[in-house]
Structures are given as C-alpha cells and as structure tokens.
C-alpha cells in the first residue's frame, strides 16, 4: 500500500508540487497525466526518494515514510521494493556492459545469489520482457529503442518490486513498438502498485485503471480511467482530451486558452478556465469526492448548464415534442439531429422561451425557469437559419449588433461593439457598420448575427441550423468560428441540425430526435460507432459520405414517409444486404 499525503516539493523558490494526495493499493495502476511543467517527473522521482529539493509531507510505503528515511535505507528499497523505469532509454543503460550484466547487477545489489540461480533468473526475466538470450548478451548500442526499453523493464522487474514507477515509458518509441511495450507493461503491472507518468493519454488509457490529472503541481481530477476519459468532470481534463487526437473521437481539435503559469494564486487553472468565479482567484480548491470522482474545483467540476425534463408541446393533434430529456454542460456542444418535422426547432424555441411548453421542466444552472426574464437572455442566446431575415432590414450592422444592449439597458458601448466584431472576424470600419442586412453576404450576415448574440456574453448559444442556408466554404468558416468561440469563452452550444456529418465534426455529444422524441443520446463517437436504433443507422446511411464508387454523396433530407417506423419493419433492411455491407464497411473504415 502506497500513501502519499500532502506532498510538497520545491526547488529553491519554486514550488513544483503543491500538495499531492494519492492512495494506492496492490493491483492499482495509476496514470498521472499532464502537460510539461506540471510536475509529473518530480512526483515520480520524489516517490523514489531521488530528489534533492525540499520535500515535505509523507510518502508511506508499507507503513514507513520514505521521506523520513535515511538515504542508506532508501537505497535498500530502491530497486528492490520499488523500481522505476526511466524516461530516456539512451542514458539509462550503461554502454560498456551487456544487458544481462546490467540485469545481474540490479539483482545482485539487493539479493546476492550464486551464478546458476542468477543466470536462471536473468533468463527468466529476459523471456518475461520478450528478449532472447542473444539480445541479453548484446550491448545497449546494438539494440533498437524498443529492445532497450524492454531491457530497462527487465531491470526494474528484477527483484519483483511492489511498486513499479514508469516515467514516459513509450515516449521515444514508434507507434507499433509502443503498442507492444504497452502490452508488456500492462502485464508487468499486474499484482503490483503501478504508477505511470505520461503525457500520452491513449497510452495511459491502455495500461492504467485509475487516472490522475496533474496541473501546475496539483491534482485536479482523479478517478477510474475509463470514466475519466468518457466523462471528464474537470474543465482542464476535458480541454486535454479535446486537444489530443485519437482514432475514436470525431470532433475537431480544440485547445485550451492561455498558457500554464506556475505562480498563480487560488486555483492554478483559473486564468485559463472559462467558468471561473471570483472565488477561484483567491482560494485554492481541495481535492474532494464528487460522486465517485475526486475533483479539485470550487464549482464541483464542469457546471451542468441546461437540464430539460419531460418537455411536451402539441399543436392540436400533432405532438411536436413528446417528453424530451436533455442535459448540456458548460463549454460543450450537443448536436440535436433529426429530420425536418422531428420537433427539434420547436424544442429549441421552447428552451428560448419563444414557445410555451405544455408540460415539463427546464432548468438553467439548477434553477427552474418560469417566464423568461431579461437575466435569462443574458445567459442564453440563439442564432437562426436565415441570418438575413433574423436581422431587421431597417437596421444597419451597428444598430443590429447593439440592439440587445439597448433592450437590456446596458448602454451603447463602442468598445463592446468593436470587441465583438473582432471576435467574429469582421471589420469595424464605418462603411461596413452602416451597411444594411440585405446588402451583406450570407456568411457576413451570420457573423453579424453571432456577434449580436455574443454581445451580452451568454453562456449557452442555441444554433438552429446556422449554416444550412450557406455555401460549404462559408459553412466551414462559420463552424470554425463557433468552435473557436467555444474554446475561448467556454460557450456551450446546442446545435440543431439535420446534417449528421456536420454534427459529427463539431459536437461532443449527440441526440437523435424523431417524431418529438429523443431516440438516442450519448457521446458522438460512441453513438456513431455503435448506434442502437435503426433510425440512427438510417440517418447515417443517408448522411454525406464517399461511397464505394468514390462519389461524394451529399446529405439528402429523407422525404416524408421514407423512414417510417423502421423498428417494426426491420425485415426491409434485411432485403438489401448490399447496402448493409457497404455501411458496415464504411463504419469500419472511418
């Protein structure tokens, strides 16, 4: 059992680790992820007791505090009870000794034994890490990077340590070797306490069962690896995941605004956090248990912004929205996908307060909504399908953008106008400001509409088919703009669209809507990789894709009566195996 309590490490003036608490049992493999400068290697080294810097706190292994021990005692433990595989494979191996010699040395230092037993043990270890006897007799410079890494692992495992620490174990390896080494490492960490320090999230996901996110010397989030990766609860974790490309997630990459600054007061992440409060600049949040996950955030992690429960709306006999439940968190994009007539626009309008729901509840940041106040509209805004119609043709650009300020009584501020025009990448010169909406191009008009929506600094933007009336190249730019705004401002976006391919590229989560009901909801990558509903598969099939003949098929809006109650008519799909095969093949290849 390894217990780290309140570990603080400083090098002279600089405090690198600012209070780390970790508790590990046998069989736990914890990965510590973070960016450069977070303090990961410092943490690994301090557990081994290899640091010269000022350490305070306790690191308790089997009841004994490593930091309190004398160096001689620590030397006994190092390599025996706890072992480390270092980052730099080139430097960690002694060039004048063979691999077997170095492994023998690792064993002999702690457990002197006769030559035969030693030989046996070394051979056993070599087999364990997948090296042959000849490789064992070679010198380090004669081996490839992967083989050297294996040698280091053998040395670490030599005395069957209880704690195995890995520092960036696959950083210098190519992709295929990486996969093999990771497999080996996962095997090696069984029945031990494992600590993996890495910046590579996919590697961490493969070998660890628990994950801790380190930022500026503090742990911001800790929990079960799969859960942390599927549902990150801290804004930094989410930002990290969004900026790491992998083969599963479909959303475009987004970064985190700002840069890590070590000397920040209060929460270390707050200058880059899009949901920080005043409190976050003063007080440092402690790592607390929030529903099974450890999070260090004053707001309890990512704030759930919008909760919709059982919303219903009928127009005469037609049930436009029939019991809809939705959740939207701060800074994420939820795509509401469905055909025309599925009720998605009605749902969006009900959330905005333009249409009154028949029943159901809508909560914004936890408070139930009644009649919408002006305060509400400062937090939630909407952009429409037809940008030129959504701007009054009697107002020029400047008046249109400042209209919300007038209505809210916030005063016409020239700086706000220019700032918001700058954000949407439009010019602020008077010639443009005097233009009327019918003189603007589609893309410009939509940017003006977005600027107008942003001027009140909302937290949630509902985008109702914002680009379906625009050309493709303009569409790409507008969506890019929305993603940038999300990255910079932490803007949560509810994107209502019929275009599945588009939604796939810009959404974190997706909800498929049909006939007023939400059929499926979940992470976009999960939903599209394994759709549960027949209707979702139908949608995917008719989405824009390059089919087998290499021809680009543009998304067509399925006509009325085409995909009607397919669940009951599944035999229809079986009749056309060709399409099915093609679709499966397409899913596998993308």
């Amino acid at each position, binding site marked *: 059992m390894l217990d780290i309590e309140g570990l603080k490490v400083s090098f002279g003036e600089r405090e690198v680790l600012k209070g780390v608490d970790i508790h590990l049992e046998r069989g736990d493999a914890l990965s510590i992820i973070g960016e450069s400068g977070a303090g990961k290697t410092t943490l690994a080294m301090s557990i081994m007791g290899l640091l010269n810097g000022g350490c305070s706190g306790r690191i308790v292994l089997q009841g004994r505090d490593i930091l309190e021990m004398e160096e001689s005692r620590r030397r006994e433990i190092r390599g025996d009870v706890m072992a480390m595989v270092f980052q730099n494979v080139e430097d960690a191996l002694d060039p004048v000794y063979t691999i077997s010699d170095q492994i023998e040395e690792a064993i002999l230092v702690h457990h002197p034994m006769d030559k035969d037993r030693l030989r046996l043990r070394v051979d056993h270890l070599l087999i364990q890490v997948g090296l042959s006897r000849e490789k064992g007799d070679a010198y380090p410079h004669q081996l490839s990077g992967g083989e050297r890494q294996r040698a280091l692992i053998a040395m670490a495992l030599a005395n069957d340590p209880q704690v195995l620490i890995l520092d960036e174990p696959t950083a210098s390896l190519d992709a295929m070797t990486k996969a093999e080494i990771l497999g080996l490492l996962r095997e090696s960490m069984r029945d031990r306490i494992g600590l993996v320090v890495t910046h590579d999230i996919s590697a961490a996901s493969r070998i660890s069962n628990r994950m801790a996110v380190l930022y500026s010397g503090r742990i911001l989030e800790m929990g079960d690896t799969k859960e942390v990766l599927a549902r990150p609860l801290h804004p930094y974790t989410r930002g990290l995941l969004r900026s790491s490309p992998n083969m599963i997630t479909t959303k475009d990459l987004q970064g985190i605004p700002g840069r890590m600054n070590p000397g920040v007061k209060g929460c270390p992440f707050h200058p880059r956090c899009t949901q920080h409060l005043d409190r976050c600049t003063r007080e440092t949040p402690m790592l607390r248990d929030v529903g099974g996950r450890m999070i260090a955030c004053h707001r309890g992690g990512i704030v759930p912004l919008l909760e919709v429960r059982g919303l219903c709306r009928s127009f005469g006999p037609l049930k436009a929205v029939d019991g809809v439940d939705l959740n939207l968190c701060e800074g994420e994009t939820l795509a509401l996908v469905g055909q025309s007539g599925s009720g998605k626009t009605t749902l969006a309008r009900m959330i905005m307060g333009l249409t009154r729901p028949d029943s159901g509840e809508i909560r914004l940041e936890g408070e139930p909504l009644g009649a919408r106040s*002006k305060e*509400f509209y400062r937090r939630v805004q909407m952009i429409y399908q037809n940008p030129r*119609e959504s*701007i*009054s*043709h*009697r107002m020029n650009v400047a008046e249109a953008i400042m209209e*919300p300020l007038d209505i809210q009584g916030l005063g016409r501020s020239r700086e706000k106008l220019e700032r918001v025009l700058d954000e949407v990448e439009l010019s602020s010169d008077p010639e443009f400001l005097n233009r009327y909406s*019918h003189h603007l191009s589609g893309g410009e008009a939509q940017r003006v*509409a977005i600027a107008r929506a942003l001027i009140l600094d909302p937290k949630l933007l509902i985008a109702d088919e914002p680009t379906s009336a625009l050309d493709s190249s303009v569409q790409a730019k507008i969506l890019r703009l929305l993603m940038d705004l999300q990255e910079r401002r932490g803007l949560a976006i509810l994107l209502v669209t019929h275009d599945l391919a588009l939604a796939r590229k810009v959404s974190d989560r997706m909800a498929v809507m049909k006939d007023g009901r939400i059929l499926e909801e979940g992470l976009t990558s999960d939903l599209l990789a394994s759709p549960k509903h027949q209707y979702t598969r139908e949608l995917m099939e008719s989405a824009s894709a390059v089919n087998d003949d290499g021809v680009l098929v543009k998304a067509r809006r399925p006509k009325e009566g085409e995909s009607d109650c397919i669940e009951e008519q599944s035999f229809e799909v079986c009749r056309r195996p060709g399409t099915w095969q093609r679709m499966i093949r397409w899913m596998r290849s993308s």
Partner: protein
Amino acid sequence: MHIDPLGEVFGRSTGRIGLLLLCLMVGLALFAPLLTPYSPSQRTDASAFSPPSHDHPLGTNDARQDIWTRLIYGARTSLSVAVGVALLSGLISATIGSTSAIFGGIYDRFWMRVVDAMLAIPAVIIVILVATYLQPNLMLMIVLISAMSWPGGARVIRAQTLSLKERMHVSAARTFGAGWRHILCRHILPDLGPVLLAIMIQDARAAVFMEAGLSFLGIADPSMISWGKMMQYARVFTYLDVWKWWLLPTGIALSITLVGLSLIGYSLETALDPRLKDNGRGA
C-alpha cells in the same frame, strides 16, 4: 422585404402624376393669400354673377364674392380635412390594429368585434345623421369622419402586424428580452409604414369626398368655405350661365384632388402587393 415608399411613388408615372396634382392643390391652398387680393367672404364691388374678368378670374357668385378666392380657400378646407382625417384615423387604426395583434386575447377580440360592427354599418348614413345634429365645423368634421374610417385601416394593420410578428427578427428581438413596446416601435411600426401610408391616403381621399358631400347636403358648418357648399349653391342657379365658372371649376378642383390622391394611393398599393406589379413598366 425592403420597401421604400417614396421611391416607389416617385418611380412610377402614376405616382408622379398623382403627386403633381396633389402638389398643385397644396400649392393653391398654401399660397392662397398671394394668389388673390380678396378674402373669401368679402363682398366685392362687382355685381353678382359677373362673368370672368381681369379682376375676377372666375367671376362672382350670388353674394358678390370672388369665386376664384373661394375656390382656393376651399382647397384649404378640403386639404385640412384630408390631412386631419389621414392623421387621426391613421393613428387610431395603427394603435388599435397593432396592439390588438400584439396582445391578442380578449383585447383583440373586443376590438375586432367593434371593427366588425362598425364596418357593417354604412358609414355615410351615420355621418349624415350625426352631422345633421351637430353641424360640425372643421375640427368636428375631422373627428367625425375619422371615427367612421378607422375600422377599415385597423383591420389591415392588424393583419399586417400579425404577419410581421412572426418574422425572425421579431423573434430575435424577443430573445434579447425586448418587451412589446420595443418590438412595436423598432420592429413593427417601421415595417408598417408603407401600409399605413397607403391606408392614410385612402382615408384622405374618402374624407375629401365625404366632406364635400356633407357640405353639399348642407349639413356642415355654414361658415366653412367648402367646395361642396359652393357646388350646392351653384347648382341652384344652373339656369343662368354662371355655372360655367362657378360649378365647373369647383367640380374640377375637387376631381383633381381626388384623382391625385387616388393615383398616389394606387402607386403605393402596387408597391405593397407584388402581384399587382407588372414588372417595371412604370405604369
């Protein structure tokens, strides 16, 4: 859709002609004192029923008053009524029509039933009956005629507002937290402008006609100088030659005013309703 009313009116020949005729009448009315040395009720030195001469371009009437003077001062009356009714009736129509559309509910239903009732009753008869009792002067006449002509306009404005209310930019304004007052003033009324203008022109035209009619029937204020009254008196003396320069010019003046207003109204309406446009032939 962006409608520019002045551009539409000026751009078409009907509009231009109408505007010209109206401006002619307005000019006569405005510059009346400059165009004649007499005052309208002044008894001149000439004898009654004298034919047109240098001093009296249209001769004199039975009370030895200069007909030309009475004609151009009568223009003032007609045009005042026209403007007054246009403004007052337009104001009432716009207010009631747009607020009914915006508020809906009982308010809307009440006012629309009022409008229905008033439209069912022939306005002319009511006006005549009321006028017979009141003998209205200019102000009262404007009020009376407005009271009967606002319902038609209100209906149209309500319909227009209902359609404007559903426009995207109105929804957008609501999503900024706009109350009905802001929406009415900045989004709906500016777009109602062209329709309102057309309604006002029509009201003005009807008002001129009605005023002339009332005066002709002799139930308006006798001290008002009105074309209708002139025609009423002139009609009595048709057996003399005097009708040529008394009845005819008055009738022509009245017609010019009415035609002018009609043409302007017509050109505005073709602008408002795209189906009436005949693709830029300027008709």
